[in-house]
């Protein structure tokens, strides 16, 4: 069963940085994450108006999960029944 994993999460001078393994079953031979399944995100540090930093960080995680799920969907193809038929 695949899951998504935060490989790195860092507070930097002007941004929050995250590196995400969007499918932790995708590894290369040495056991490290397949770079094709790794995404990096940099977020501004100031929360939107009316939000606390904790609320903002929770929102960031939600948005990253949505983006990674969207990315996985785009990487997946399903053959149609038409495949191989004469046109």
């Amino acid at each position: 069963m695949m899951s998504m994993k935060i490989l790195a999460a860092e507070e930097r001078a002007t941004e929050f940085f995250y590196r995400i393994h969007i499918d932790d079953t995708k590894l290369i031979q040495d056991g490290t994450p397949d770079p094709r399944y790794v995404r990096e995100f940099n977020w501004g540090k100031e929360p939107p108006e009316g939000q606390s930093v904790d609320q903002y960080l929770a929102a960031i995680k939600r948005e990253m999960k949505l983006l990674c799920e969207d990315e996985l969907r785009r990487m997946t193809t399903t053959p149609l029944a038409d495949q191989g038929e004469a046109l």
Partner: protein
Amino acid sequence: MAYQKPVQLYGRTTADGLANIEGGNALAHLLGYNGSTWDRWRNNTQGTLLASAERTAAVQSANVTNYNANAAILFLDVTAASGTGGLSIYFDAKDSVTGKYFRLNAAPSAIIATGSFAFMLAPGVSGKGADVSQITGGVISPVWRVRVNVGDASAYTYSIGYALIV
């Protein structure tokens, strides 16, 4: 006769942030100097800023790095709308010194209905297309994001994609 250092040819893997090297690069790609390293020259690029989901609060996307584009288009697709409050879409340019963001477009009309809406930021634009909600004369910055401000805490389901135009 003056000594001349031999020129060495390097076969290199295409990547961003290539270090300066002495000699010739055997690399059939355009590179652009960013002040300290070399980045690949980009064609038009596109991507997702916010995936489709229901949201009830203001949102800022992750930063997008723009290598050599001048113009940007945002594609807002609203599939469920409360009809109140509304969504206001901004291009935010990041100041690399302070980390502060600067809005590049004027306050747009809030989107309160479902539909597809485009927002364009480009040099010298005039006359907007049928599905373009706002055009702004200007250029997109090296690091930018989209900001979605909300008029109230009601629910909207939407996604935002982008295109960077060279």
